């Protein structure tokens, strides 16, 4: 059934349909309507889940680690500072191989205090062992949340479903909400490969010596590799039931493209329009949408980008002292390909600033006109500001 709902509400609908058992969240800013909607579902009986209102995001994830260890389906949602506070436990969740699903609304980190969209919060957690999926619109967000449970439970790794603040979390769009019966076919009850069991007591997460630790870390890496292989299968199964298909990466008119723009999140939608316009004018331009950031689909990306003349990556995030984070990853993916195209790393839309079609066209033009990038980071639309703080 199609309904006009917010991106946040779409996540909540997916969590309801996934028949999650335990939800744990800290309910103040930078929280979103996701847990607000879910707490409503729990209190009115729409969803038979235990909703834990905890005292911090650190505790929110800690509670889910306990719940997931007992073999039930778990969910939380957070943003920016809240995700940062979870950092220690992000590592724990993946190390313990717990299939927790989290909706992560990309919000800028403070200070200055800013709750608008910015990807730095989730990208800063790239090494924590969480699968990360960046969504473009409301339907993809709902569908991806359902797929996240399937994927997480197959590879025993936690999954972060990432969506842009406001542009996606708070934007109303028509979204098809699947029937429960269909979702139940796609997502059967969680059958854990291990769980806390009083009949068979054991301790998880105990001390491990150098003799074994390395193999355990390699096992996590293997789980990530398996996720890369299994995501297309999950997509296939999903498409078979719901008729919709998303992908780890989506190339748009890249086959003969000389310049390929690389995007993630809601900027992709704007970029799709630009590509259409430019193609009508005869420009040989393509778009690569990257949805799966961890594990990073290096091979697939290399196949799409290597034949192009120039690559322009649009990053709504920044790693201080380096460059945009997607640009880093793209450069790393291409560097072993002889004669690979130069990668222009553009930084735009930080802290919720609009990335319009004009901004994107400017990026395209700059890429066309330059042989090589002048710097590793090309900031778009910066204003004049004082060089130093004036003392009163």
């Amino acid at each position: 059934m199609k309904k006009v709902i917010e991106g946040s509400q779409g996540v909540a609908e997916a969590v309801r349909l996934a028949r999650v058992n335990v939800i744990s969240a800290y309910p103040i800013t930078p929280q979103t309507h996701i847990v607000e909607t879910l707490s409503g579902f729990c209190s009115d009986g729409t969803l038979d889940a235990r909703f834990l209102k905890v005292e911090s995001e650190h505790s929110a994830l800690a509670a889910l680690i306990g719940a997931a260890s007992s073999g039930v389906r778990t969910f939380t949602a957070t943003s920016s500072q809240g995700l940062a506070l979870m950092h220690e436990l992000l590592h724990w969740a993946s190390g313990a191989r717990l299939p927790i699903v989290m909706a992560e609304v990309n919000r800028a980190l403070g200070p200055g205090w800013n709750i608008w969209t910015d990807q730095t919060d989730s990208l800063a957690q790239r090494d924590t062992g969480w699968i990360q999926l960046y969504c473009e619109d409301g339907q993809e967000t709902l569908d991806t949340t359902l797929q996240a449970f399937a994927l997480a439970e197959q590879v025993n790794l936690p999954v972060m479903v990432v969506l842009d603040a406001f542009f996606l979390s708070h934007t109303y769009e028509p979204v098809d909400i699947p029937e429960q019966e269909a979702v139940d076919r796609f997502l059967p009850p969680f059958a854990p490969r291990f769980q806390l069991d009083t009949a068979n007591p054991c301790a998880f997460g105990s001390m491990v010596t150098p003799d074994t630790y390395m193999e355990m870390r390699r096992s996590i890496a293997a789980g990530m590799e398996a996720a890369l292989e299994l995501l297309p299968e999950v997509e296939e199964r999903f498409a078979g039931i719901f008729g919709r298909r998303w992908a780890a990466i989506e190339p748009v008119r890249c086959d003969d493209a000389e310049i390929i723009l690389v995007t993630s999140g809601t900027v992709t939608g704007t970029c799709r329009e630009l590509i259409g316009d430019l193609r009508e004018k005869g420009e040989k331009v393509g778009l690569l949408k990257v949805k799966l950031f961890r594990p990073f689909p290096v091979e697939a990306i290399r196949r799409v980008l290597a034949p192009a003349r120039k690559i322009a990556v649009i990053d709504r995030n920044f790693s201080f002292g380096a460059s945009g984070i997607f640009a880093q990853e793209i450069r790393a993916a291409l560097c072993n390909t002889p004669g690979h195209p130069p990668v222009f790393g553009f930084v735009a839309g930080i802290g919720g600033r609009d990335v319009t079609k004009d901004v994107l066209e400017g990026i395209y033009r700059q890429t066309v006109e330059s042989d090589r990038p002048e710097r590793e980071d090309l900031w778009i639309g910066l204003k004049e500001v004082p060089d130093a703080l004036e003392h009163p």
Partner: protein
Amino acid sequence: MAKKPDPVPVSLFIPRSYLTTEGNKTGSWRFLRPRYEEKTAPCSAACPAAEDIGKIEMLAAQGLFKDAWEAILRENPFPGICGRVCFHPCEDVCNRGSFDEAVAIHVLERFLANRARRGVFTPDLKRLAPKRQTVAVVGAGPAGLSAAYFLTLLGYRADVFEAADEAGGVLRWGIPLYRLPLAILQEEIRRIEETGVRIQTGNPISQRDINTFIEGHDALFIACGHGRSAQMGVPGEGLPGVQDGLTFLREIREGTISSLGGQAAVIGGGNAAVDVARSIIRLGGSALIVYRRRRRDMPAFGEEIAMALDEGVELRELLAPVAIRDSDGGLVVEVQPMQIAGTDTDGRAHIEPKGKKTEEIRVDRLFTAVGERPGEAWYEPPTEGNGVLRLSHCVLQQRASGPVVYGGDLTNATKSVAHAVASGKEAAMALDTFLAEGIEAVQPRLAACRVGEGPALSMEIYMHGPRSERSFHVVTSDEINTAYFQFDPRVRQPRLLREERVRSFGEVNLRISANLAIREAERCFNCGLCNQCDNCYLFCPDLAVKKDSGPLGRHIDYDYCKGCGVCAVECPRNAMILEEEAYEEGD
């Protein structure tokens, strides 16, 4: 529908252990040792009768009213009386007072006594095996009755000899009915008799009886009280129309006075003066209290003074009577204005005449209430000498035929019912120790029974009850973890309206409901006492707090306690202690 994918064996190599970690005795890491140690609540140390108030409120908060009432009876045979007339020094030191407001301990004591009365509770009290010795008690006032009650619990036969027709002493003849209804007094005396105490009323004791130990008793307790009013030493004191306050109060209680018109003056600043003035108002007269110092210097309880003024009693401060004269069927009191000049050695304000000009006050009658004296000179306890021990609330004298203890108002500096109870209790302990172990044992034994720094003494400790396990340390307000308490206003004592009070001798204070009482008792911090809140159990990161069936309900497993101290810090009421681990040489 898509083909179901073949299961892919995803690598899953995780730390998992089927071994117990109990072999790793992490308790060996400890250098601080937490320990359950119950301490002394400030209220219980301030209570002259040493009532275990923190415990009483804990029981009351659980609705265990009978247990709470019995906890009072272990230290004080008069919950109904003290719940009405006590000046409650406990509340002045309540640690909750520095948080929001002191717990209404006095109101709760009265509630528990009422509850016992309505439920017709029979107390279940610890009694020692009967002993062959007998003790004679002279005077059936609060001190004498208390001594007889505790001596009976300690196994003695106690015979009380009372000169008046009814027992009670000042409770029967001195305290007005609006503060203490007769039925309450009679019931508490009856309960003392039910423990086995024999009271012989109308049986005055002479000095000769004392010398024979009243026909061969093994020990004596003399608590005849201060039954005679002191003289002012002012000309005209003997005029008709001048009466002593104690006699006046007694006549009201005897029923010989039922109304009194006109303007009366009351000379004095103690409780007797206030009782006289408030009684005059109720009999239909007007009352003026004339006091030579200031209101703040009055020995009467502040609450009583406030209620007297509320009821229409007038107070004139810094006026000392110098002469009384007849005048047209009335009296003229000549008063000298006084002023404060420093402090006396006893801490009271020193006063001296202010100028030479005196003032005249015209009244219809005058009552004196300037202090009381023993009825007979031989009631006075010996001051010094061989075989004389001055105890905190008594004087013990070793005579050839046995021990004699003087107590009650005869020895107490503060004349209150609670102090009388303290005196009777101390006398019982002193006589028991004397008879069993001799005079040398008395003072060390009493010192071991003090609550906190004393001088209050606990009969439960004397009888080696659970209270004797507690430390003497009196819990201070900064030792309470107030994070666990919320601001909550104190229950208000409901009272008769002033218009109703001034018309009758009906009891001024009214009862509170059980749910209000529970709520008020829940406000108690239970300083130093474990109320099984389980914080230690919940917070222990090593699961080293174990529940058991012992009296405390829990113990610490030192094999695994690392000594982090979280339990002691999170204990809201300082019922735990953290000590440095004592390692032996070579460890």
